């Protein structure tokens, strides 16, 4: 026994020989959820050429691997922002006020499918979908009710909307104008990321090229008139949820970002005039360290791209600011209360990864939209991490871990090789037109499902530790079917009561802006103020820019 303490390996290879750590393992493969083999450990002598001074630097300094702020959450906690929306604008307004009363610090709006696809509540294709997956928004009157009694200069508002983002953004600004707010005081984010729609979320109107043009109209308008508003949230979340690996999520998201920057620069916008307000949105999934590493790699990569590829000079242009949401796809319908634990661990990874804002999913989201009680547990989970665990007091506490640093570099290099492929295809817009990222996702999601079906990836309550007999249910939220009738009647009445002359001239102004390749935002703001609806603007987009159809690739 005394001799054991003398046994000391000189290198990692000696240690492997001495201990044979890969023998007698409880299973054959130890892979991450992204199919990456986990190392048994990473030793100090395996760090090779890793140079902490250039790869990490200090928090708040280039390349921002350790975070964009010097004292991160000591100055200000991340924004706790729960995504909410269902039913009529009145229903969602009540949920917003409930969340604010419970200590939430920002609002985030979910719209229903008709709104997201550009149909009013009275359209035939909206049947059965009005107010079900989010709030129904057809007119400026809906926007007014949605934010009734909420001071938009005091909270930041996020809107998750994409192909119809120009209309929602216009309604928001038109409402702000009616209320007499200074646009410079409006803070918030609109998702407005069309490239990831074609890759993953699949909400679109027109083909990729005009869609990207419209996204950039919002970026340009915000940079000029609402400088605190983030005109885009470049989103990996949906890409990951649709089946990407962590490295694919990172690569495709950054490649989307590069495509928007390229487009804006080609329009003649100086990079530092808009890049400081670009924001990102990532998923935070189950493999704890992989997720932490992904956020760290994302910041380092973006900083270098902005500096080296686009010659950005402003520090803020190089900083990747991100929202994160726990992985909806990881939640199980079986034993749903277990989801609270999953969400807590994912949220912890996001915080250790240094995100700026966070949505924690509710335990019941595989069953229905969340109940107030389930949303509250999810919000409290963030508050527990913030107030009780101490993790928010230290910046990048995992920095310097051999494993986390190696993993950060590894994910970075995997993502860089995807980006090289995309560059070779002519950038993301062209890669999307060729179906490249779509096919990569279909492959990865099928591979993952096979691993679950073959027990290579275990999910508690689904393919292991199943309950015997009936499971305990939890209450679920239901949306009143009458909502659809009410909302349909409301938009029909609204359309009748409008000044028809102003309607006609507004529609003409929007059509002209589209046809003449102008920034559509100024015409749109006036048009929605005159009562033009989401569906009517979308019809103009269909007419001028064409309609995109799903290629249905398997």
């Amino acid at each position, binding site marked *: 026994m005394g001799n054991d303490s003398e046994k000391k390996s000189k290198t990692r290879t000696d240690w492997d020989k001495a201990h044979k750590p890969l023998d007698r393992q409880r299973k054959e493969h130890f892979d991450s959820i992204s199919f990456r083999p986990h190392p048994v450990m990473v030793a100090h002598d395996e760090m090779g050429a890793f140079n902490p001074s250039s790869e990490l630097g200090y928090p708040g300094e280039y390349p921002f691997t350790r975070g964009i702020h010097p004292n991160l959450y000591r100055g200000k906690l991340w924004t706790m922002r729960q995504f909410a929306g269902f039913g009529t604008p009145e229903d969602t307004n009540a949920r917003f006020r409930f969340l604010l009363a419970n200590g939430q610090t920002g609002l985030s709006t979910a719209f229903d*499918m008709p709104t997201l696809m550009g*149909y009013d509540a009275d359209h035939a294709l909206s*049947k059965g*979908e009005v107010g079900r997956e989010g709030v129904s928004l057809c007119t400026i009157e809906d926007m007014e009710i949605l934010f009734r009694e909420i001071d938009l200069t005091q909270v930041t508002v996020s809107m998750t909307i994409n192909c119809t983002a120009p209309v929602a953004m216009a309604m928001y600004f038109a409402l702000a104008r009616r209320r007499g707010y200074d646009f410079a005081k409006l803070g918030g984010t609109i998702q407005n990321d069309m490239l990831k*729609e074609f890759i993953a979320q699949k909400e679109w109107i027109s083909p990729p090229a005009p869609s990207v043009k419209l996204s950039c109209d919002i970026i340009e308008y915000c940079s000029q008139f609402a400088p605190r508003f983030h005109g885009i949230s470049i989103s990996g979340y949906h890409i990951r949820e649709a089946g990407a690996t962590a490295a694919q999520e990172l690569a495709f998201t950054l490649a989307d970002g590069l495509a928007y920057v390229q487009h804006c620069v080609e329009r003649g916008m100086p990079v530092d005039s808009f890049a400081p307000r670009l924001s990102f949105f990532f998923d935070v999934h189950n493999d704890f360290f992989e997720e932490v590493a992904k956020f760290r790699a994302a910041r380092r990569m973006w900083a270098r791209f902005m500096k080296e590829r686009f010659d950005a000079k402003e520090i803020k242009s190089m900083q990747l600011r991100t929202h994160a949401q726990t992985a909806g796809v990881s939640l199980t319908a079986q034993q749903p209360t277990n989801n609270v634990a999953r969400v807590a661990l994912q949220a912890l990874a996001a915080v250790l990864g240094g995100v700026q804002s966070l949505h924690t999913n509710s335990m019941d989201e595989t069953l229905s939209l969340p109940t107030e009680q389930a949303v509250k547990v999810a919000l409290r989970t963030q508050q527990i991490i913030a107030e009780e665990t101490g993790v928010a007091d230290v910046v990048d506490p995992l920095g310097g871990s051999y494993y986390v640093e190696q993993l950060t570099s590894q994910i970075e290099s995997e993502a860089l090789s995807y980006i090289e492929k995309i560059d070779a295809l002519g950038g993301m817009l062209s890669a999307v037109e060729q179906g490249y990222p779509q096919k990569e996702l279909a492959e990865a999601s*099928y591979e993952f499902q*096979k691993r679950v079906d073959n027990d290579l990836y275990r999910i508690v309550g689904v393919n292991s530790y199943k309950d015997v007999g009936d499971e305990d249910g939890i209450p679920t939220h239901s949306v009143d079917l009458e909502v659809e009738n009410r909302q349909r009647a409301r938009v029909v009445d609204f359309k009748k009561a409008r000044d028809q002359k102003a309607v006609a001239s507004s529609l003409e102004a929007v059509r002209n802006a589209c046809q003449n390749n102008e920034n559509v935002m100024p015409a749109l703001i006036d048009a929605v103020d005159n009562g033009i609806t989401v569906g009517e603007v979308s019809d103009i987009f269909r007419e001028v820019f064409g309609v995109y159809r799903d290629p249905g690739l398997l």
Partner: protein
Amino acid sequence: MSNSPKAPVRVLIGKPGLDGHDRGAKVVARALRDAGMEVIYTGLHQTPKMIVTSAIQEDVDCLGMSILSGAHMTLFSEVLKLLHDQDAEDIIVFGGGIIPDEDAKALKSQGVKELFPPGTSTQEIVTWIEKNVKPKR
């Protein structure tokens, strides 16, 4: 049981409505194809009418729909009604998605043969089809 080679089951996988969540539909379509079935995938954003028309034209034995948008009550009911109107009720309807238990019960009583909740293995779906769907040819 005859030993003659069985004709493969023909399946239409449909995505009705405005819902864009196609991960599940595509994974299931591929798994059924890998299990030897003939699979037609409609792509996104189909109306119930488009789906029923394809199902009849393609002469499928069964029709699976994936709905995660909450519009399942409306969309399944319309598809069942259209199949009934066109004397195509022999096409077996099944589905999956975010469908609360209560709604699932109601849909089954209307004629949806089976609904697979999140977490179902693709093998379970393959086995169910093999057991419940007989190829017409």
